[in-house]
């Protein structure tokens, strides 16, 4: 829950500048104009810095990044998964 809350706050501060409106956790960032396409880089930077995620180009899809729900799922699954040992 904390991750989701933190993501939500980031989206509200960073993309909506406090204009929360009735932002739903499953609202599409792209369809609702919440994140413009150049803004996705900010989201990626945040995920990498805040949660230490290492994201490959193949991860960077709307399926993974296009709503608070989706991003929360991505972060949770990555944090839960054991680090690959090579």
């Amino acid at each position, binding site marked *: 829950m904390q991750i989701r809350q933190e993501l939500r706050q980031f989206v509200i501060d960073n993309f909506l500048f*406090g204009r929360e409106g009735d932002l739903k956790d499953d609202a599409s960032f792209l369809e609702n104009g919440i994140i*413009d*396409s*150049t803004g*996705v880089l900010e989201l*990626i930077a945040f995920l990498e810095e805040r949660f230490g995620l290492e994201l490959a*180009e193949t991860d*960077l899809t*709307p399926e993974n990044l296009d709503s608070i729900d989706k991003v929360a799922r991505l972060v949770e699954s990555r944090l839960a998964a054991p680090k690959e040992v090579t």
Partner: protein
Amino acid sequence: MCGICGVVNLKGAPIDPDLPAQMISQIRHRGPDEVGVYVDSQVGFGHARLSIIDLSGGHQPMPDSQRSLWITFNGEIFNYVELTEELIRKGHQFATHCDTEVILHLYQEEGERCVERLNGQWAFAIWDTTQQKLFLSRDRLGVRPLFYTQTPDNLLFASEIKALLACPEVKREIDLHALDQIFTFWATLAPRTPFKNIWQLPPGHSMVVERGQVRVWPYWHLEYAPDSELGQGSEEKLADELLALMLDATRIRLRADVPVGAYLSGGLDSTFVTALAKKLVGHRLKTFSVSFDDPQFDEGAYQREAAAFLGTEHYDVHCVNDDIARVFPEVIWHAEQPILRTAPAPLFVLSKLVRDNGFKVVLTGEGSDETMGGYDIFKETKIRCFWQREPHSTKRPLLLRRLYPYMDGIQQQPSAYLESFFRIDEQSPGPFFSHLPRWQLTARAKLFFSAAVKSGLGAYNAMDELQGLLPERYNSWEAFLQAQFLETNYLLPGYILSSQGDRMAMAHAVEGRFPFLDYRVVEFASKLPIRMKMKVLQEKYLLKRCAEGLIPRSVQSRPKQPYRAPDALCFLEPAAREYVDELLSSDCIGRYGMFEPGPVAKLFEKVRSGRPISVRDNMALVGIISTQLVIHQFVNQVSWRSWNADQARVETVRH
């Protein structure tokens, strides 16, 4: 090149005889050499002169020999020599060697249709005392500005809005629809301006005020005929024809009784124009450029290479972020409209460099990208059309990577997001297929509009207004040509030639001349097949062929880089601190009423934090600060001088 203004009483009553002088005093920067006023009972003209042709004659406002016509004129008629010869053959006698007088004689000869014979850049008014008629006209592409407004009794016109505001009866109020347009297209749609009830005469239009009635009509319009006979010719023949036209367009633009210099940006267009001028003048040209610290924007290496290749005496002004910050309030004073980019500011600094070197006239490469097919938006349109024909192709969208190589914000995007940005609507592409991704991105900056602005706008949509202005023939053109039309008809006069062009040059009494905007060149280009503008994905294909050998190979083959300048980050510089603190304060944002204070504070905080910012954030911050500056200076009448009277620090490097 000058500033003009005037007033005519709509009821035939006398005007305030002091008003023309008060109006012209607001735009003396446009014409520091002389000032003239003509007052009849019901009409008055003002004129601020920048003397370029017939320095000792050519005083304005100018009457004809019978003193039945009076003209106040800003601009140049480049074919005045040929017209004079023709008119002399018809029996006209000339008192001066000035292009101004040619307009008067031509008007006597052909009346309102005289403008169809002019090749030039103009805004003028003629008072016909016999018919008690005021005739106004603006050049085909909108190089020179002409604004007007009505009060209950008078119609007033001027080169700049600030001259109209000299009349106490003219209200100072922001037009919310115009604001919405600027936060969508970067420009207002003529006849709108940022101010309510203040209008601009659209490019290619004339206007008559007679017996209290106002009539406005187009005398020229842009027409595309890509299947014309012209396109049947061989590439070589077309390149020869274009070269001959451009040479002539440049030749007549070198007509002046003062020396003519050139802007040299390091790109294809200005280098080509300079090369043509060099062929024609036979002496060493002086060229001018602006360079930046940030390699993302700087074109210094190409500029030096072009200057060395063409053997010009080159002057460069280096512009740092703090310079942009320092001049920005004054830039807005001249631009008279909100802008979403700081790009006009370095051009303001550049025109000062020109003026400091004793030059009044420069040739530039403006207009080539619009007419010859240079901008990436045309490439974008072509790729998206290609993709739309196979919407499920996985290969075609890969071409999107070829777009905007100079923009990191686009280049670093994951592929899926790149595709989403340029996404295609398979069902109905609509009339704005080419520009929708760009406009929708810009319009996101409207997030910061206040509740009052949003409710004032209601269901208004700037794109609907534009759709209503489109000519019927627009729908018959391919998307590529539609994109060209939108750029040439709206962004070019509404932003490029005004905010970046006329207003920045005239701030320091410098006149720009644009061979690519010679109407013969524009009409030639509009009849070219699209493949001559963009072959596969090579932009300005025919022009490049035409320029071969005349410009350095490196400039010829370099990737297209449109002129850009550092944006939002400039406002973190010390020179901006005072006015940014004041204008972005919660109190000031609230009082001026256009934006929501909380979100604006958060936006500025984000920019200040050094976190990555998006294209939208960049545009929003520049747009908000410039809108605040417009309100501060024009509505509240507080001068930019209250913050920072220093002129831009100019470092001139002589090569």
